[in-house]
Structures are given as C-alpha cells and as structure tokens.
C-alpha cells in the first residue's frame, strides 16, 4: 500500500498506514448460533475438536449457544477466524464472523 504515490501528499501516508494497521489489529469474533436440530453433545464435541477447548469450556460455550441463542466462541485475526468458520460449517454448525466493536 503506497498512498503517497497516488496523492503525492506525505501526510496521507501516515493516515493510510494507520488505517491499514487498525484493520489488521481489529480482532474478528467467531459466533456460533443456536439451531433446533444440532445435538448439545455434538456441538460440545465440535468445539473441543475445532478449538481444542477442554470439555468444561466447550460445554459452557455450548450452553451459552443453547440458552442465549449465540455465543462468541473465539476472537482473533481475520484469517484464523475464517478458517474456524469454515471448519464449523464443515461440522454443520451455524457460525458467522464479525469484526469486534471494541
């Protein structure tokens, strides 16, 4: 990314780079949504397999999905978030990702 070439204004470089760094630094959240069909035991197993979570944490997140309708199950870089969502979809869980607001 080289905004100075496009604008010729040195100040824009700082703005552009800062924006790019912010984009990279902003974490993405992986959300799993409740659905009426998937078994609670199956969802727990998937959380353990995909994220490597211990059973207690996996069960806590599963219950959050079940009781609250959704749960933030992981937060971090965009590429990893995409990989996790893809894996969760391969297990047929309803998963989305969203940029963190904080």
């Amino acid at each position: 990314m080289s905004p100075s070439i496009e604008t010729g204004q040195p100040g824009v470089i700082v703005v552009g780079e800062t924006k790019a760094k912010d984009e990279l630094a902003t974490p993405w959240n992986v959300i799993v949504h409740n659905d009426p069909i998937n078994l609670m035991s199956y969802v727990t197993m998937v959380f353990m397999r995909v994220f490597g979570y211990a059973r207690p944490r996996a069960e806590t997140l599963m219950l959050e999905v079940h009781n609250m309708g959704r749960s933030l199950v992981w937060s971090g870089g965009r590429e990893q978030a995409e990989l996790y969502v893809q894996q969760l979809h391969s297990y047929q869980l309803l998963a989305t990702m969203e940029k963190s607001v904080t």
Partner: protein
Amino acid sequence: MIDLNVQQLDEKRILISGIPTVLAAMLREMPEILELRDTSAARARLYPDPTAGNDKINQEWHQMTQPELRHLFVSAGETVGRDLTALTTDKEAGDVWQVAIPIEHVPAWMSAINQTRLILGEVHKIDEEGMNRTDFDPKSAADMAALRIHLLGYLLHLFVELDARYGAEDHI
C-alpha cells in the same frame, strides 16, 4: 426398548448393533434424503453465510468454500451408502440389525447422519417447538420427520459418546 449400541469391535472396526427395524429403514433412506441437499432450503442451511449482511464477503465465501464443502458432504453420504450395503439382521438378538464399519468411516457417518437430520428439519420446517414435541401424529409428515431426526440423533449421540471415550485424534 431400544438397545442400540455403538462400540469398537477391534482396532479397525466399529460395530453398530441392536438397530431396530424402524431405524434400519431410516438408515437405508438416508442416501435418498441426502439427495435433497441441493434444494434451496437445505442449501441455505448446509452452506450458511459467514457474515450477517456483508454481501461481498458472503458471495466470495460461497464461491471459494461451497464446492469443497459440498464435495465433503457428498463423499460422506456415499461412504455411508456403501457401508449400509453390509447391514444385516442379528440372528442371535432377534428382530434387530447390525453393521460393522471401518473406524476411519466414523467421521463420514457423523456427517451424513447430521446432514440428514438438518435436511429433514429444513424440508419440513421443524422448529424448536416441533423438536420438543413428544406426541407424534403418524399422518403428519412433519411429525414423522421429527421422529426420524430424534432417532438418528440418538445414533449420532452414541457416536459422540464413542468419540469421547476413545478420543478423536487417537482412535476415530
């Protein structure tokens, strides 16, 4: 009383035994139900959007991941379809069925069973209330679909328990 059991037979095989006739019939119907994966309702559930409302990301995502995901799902169904040709009656136990499957097919079975449950749920528009019902009208296609979802769910749960006993990495 259902005495369905999923257990490790030896180092290479899993035995699914005590399969009641009604569940055996449902298992045989699975390949046909899985063919519905390309209907619009099932497609939306099996290949969900990765974001809530970012059309650009969603479109790119579907182009990139859907063919691979579909291949995975189809392959799992075909594996189970082939395994089901070995479904036989258990002469010692009476009017029940059994089938031995390779251990490496367990992920395919879990995937195919869950796909079937989800497709039935979408095709028959079964919601939380429908899943929680305990009285099933034999004349209602939706009720019979919910019953199928529960019975297949019981078998899936046994696979999950097996996975918990032996561990996903080492054995299954």
